[in-house]
């Protein structure tokens, strides 16, 4: 212990300047109540931060100074200082927060409260609730339009994507999707919102203007039963050309042409892949493998899994910092 501490202490002043492509990834470990921190250049784990109970949803504030971690069993969202790794505060998230998203300006946090059929809106600077919206049964996924005007919340048992006006906090439309919708993700140009249905096994591509389902993406993997294909995490590149969908116990990430909505490839990753995140330069896509306790690293240009990082138990969410 003492040697390690001395080495660490001794090494600090000589830290080289990191190249521009090195980012910091944060992974919430639902089972071990920690956040694993690793470098996206070396893929070395640099720290493990103890947090509250059952950490799941995880995101960085826009300035990168804080990491927000939903700790469902503590009924709060913790703010972790990304420089010191100290927990510096909590947000009044409402009970059992699981997933949340930030407004494009970074000022508001929209939180799904699964037990109360409710979305809570919290002012980040004030750390105070500023609104609530009643939605369907077991709200989960939260997607915000790039202009911040529409929030799409999915409710897992009602099986709907609720389109919420962020000005009035009113639901303006409800779109019925397949069973157990988990994630809502907008294209950067706002032309489409993609909603994954875990039990239904599909991704609905919804036109936010007409609120109509343009296309239902289905998945077929030779040798795998349809029931094991359970889409959860969805990420779309900034140029709107490629999309990636984590398929849960199918142990694969689907690569999709986001223009034609055709599946191009299935990348074999770890077990029960759930959430995804790009590095800010979109060089890599990271996927959390809950059952194998690791994170798969996909080289986006190559379309290949190039690395695996061991993290804590039952990794759930992942966020990557610009810093």
């Amino acid at each position, binding site marked *: 212990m003492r040697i390690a501490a001395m080495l660490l202490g001794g090494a600090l002043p000589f830290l080289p300047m990191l190249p521009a492509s090195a980012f910091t990834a944060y992974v919430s470990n639902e089972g071990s109540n920690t956040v694993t921190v690793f470098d996206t250049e070396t893929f070395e784990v640099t720290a493990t931060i103890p947090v509250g109970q059952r950490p799941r949803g995880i995101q960085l504030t826009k300035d990168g100074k804080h990491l927000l971690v939903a700790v469902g069993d503590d009924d709060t969202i913790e703010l972790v200082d990304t420089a010191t790794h100290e927990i510096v505060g909590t947000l009044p998230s409402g009970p059992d927060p699981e997933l949340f998203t930030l407004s494009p300006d970074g000022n508001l946090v929209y939180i799904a409260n699964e037990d109360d059929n409710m979305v809570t809106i919290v002012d980040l600077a004030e750390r105070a609730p500023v609104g609530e919206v009643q939605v*369907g049964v*077991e709200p989960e996924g939260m997607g915000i339009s790039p202009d911040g005007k529409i929030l799409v919340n999915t409710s897992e048992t009602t099986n709907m994507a609720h389109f919420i006006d962020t000005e009035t906090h*009113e639901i303006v439309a409800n779109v019925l999707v397949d*069973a157990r919708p988990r994630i809502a993700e907008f294209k950067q140009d706002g032309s489409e919102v993609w909603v994954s249905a875990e039990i239904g096994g599909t991704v*609905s591509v919804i036109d936010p203007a007409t*609120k109509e*389902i343009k296309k239902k993406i289905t998945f077929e993997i030779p040798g795998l039963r349809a029931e094991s294909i359970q889409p959860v995490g969805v990420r779309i590149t900034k140029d709107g050309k490629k999309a990636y969908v984590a398929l849960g116990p199918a142990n694969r990430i689907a690569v999709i042409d986001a223009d034609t909505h055709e599946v191009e490839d299935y990348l074999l990753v770890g077990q029960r892949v759930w959430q995804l995140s790009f590095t800010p330069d979109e060089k890599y896509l990271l996927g959390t493998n809950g059952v194998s306790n690791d994170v798969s690293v996909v080289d986006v240009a190559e379309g290949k899994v190039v690395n695996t990082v061991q993290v804590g138990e039952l990794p759930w969410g992942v966020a990557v910092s610009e810093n």
Partner: protein
Amino acid sequence: MLPASLLFGQIEAAPAAEPAEVGIGYLYSSRGLEPLALAEVPAENDGQAGAELAIEDNNTTGQFLNQHFTLEMTELADGADPAEAVGGLAQQGIGYVVADLAADELLAVADAAKEAGITVFNIGAPDDRLREADCRANVIHVAPTRSMLADGLAQYLVWKQWRRWLLVEGSHPEDKLLADAYRRAAARFGAEIVEERRIEDTGGARQTDSGVVQIQSRIPVLTQEAPDYDVLVAADESEVFAAHLPYRTWDARPVAGSAGLMPTSWSPAHGQWGALQMQSRFGKRFSRPMTERDMLAWTAVRLVGEATSRTNSTEPATVDAYLKGPELGLGAYKGQKLTLRPWNLQVRQPILLTDGRVIVSVSPQQGFLHEVSELDTLGIDQPETECRLP
């Protein structure tokens, strides 16, 4: 042809018209004896609470679709005419009935319901015959069968390499049916029943002040001199003795079946796949744990809700066609969607294995393969079925 609005899945917000009403009946009869385990005495609203929660869930969804669901509870008194009870529900315009009844009562209700165009959801009778020779085109079976439960346990015991079973069965007809299901499971999955024993129900009180002293000396005697075995499998659906077996057998062996490691479709111990949310919502609403009967009732009422929202219709014929069609897939916290076996209208479902405190495993076990659905490795499968629906 579905309306365009449904095809594209959009539902207008803030509807102005009166909501379409969907009434769901719930028929139940008294359950006879108290359970052997004092901690498991059911609440007054056992089952009903699950149905009520599902009605609330359906209505949360229904508010966006302008649909409204209500529950009508009806007790089928001892000796009462099931046709009369069904007639009463039909008069209220009810098209769906959740039935927590024994097999013969269920058949009487189903036949009366057929006349009235009512679909019945069986949550109370695990009898395989209701899905086989006695199957009915208007009965959807939400409850798993004895053979599904036995197969779910058997797959795990075989995976565990506990292949030599001492089968101990009770003396009531339903105990024999359950023992038959275990015999079938043993033969199917390669286990061996090394010996069978039977424990007679000699009557008497379930709970007594000093009963434990006698039980402690009796159970070892009842289980001694058995051939070498890995696990005792108890078939005691009537709850006469099984709860007393664990820790009291002559040989130090685990107990499974009606006590010890038990197969079930739901347990308050189940938290995976979002089930924790369900347990938590139920606990908040009713201040007690959610039982298997609650979950079966919830599932039945949610099936109606799901089919109603998917078809955007309150026409029983339309809803019924969806329920029995290939599109149906209900999320019910089991890690995969629940679907119907089209040949006998049994809900396919994973089987949980629990000791009452934690979930030990969930069947089907890995490696038990099937060409259609691995869930069809549980229970009587299509090639063996005796059911011929019109």
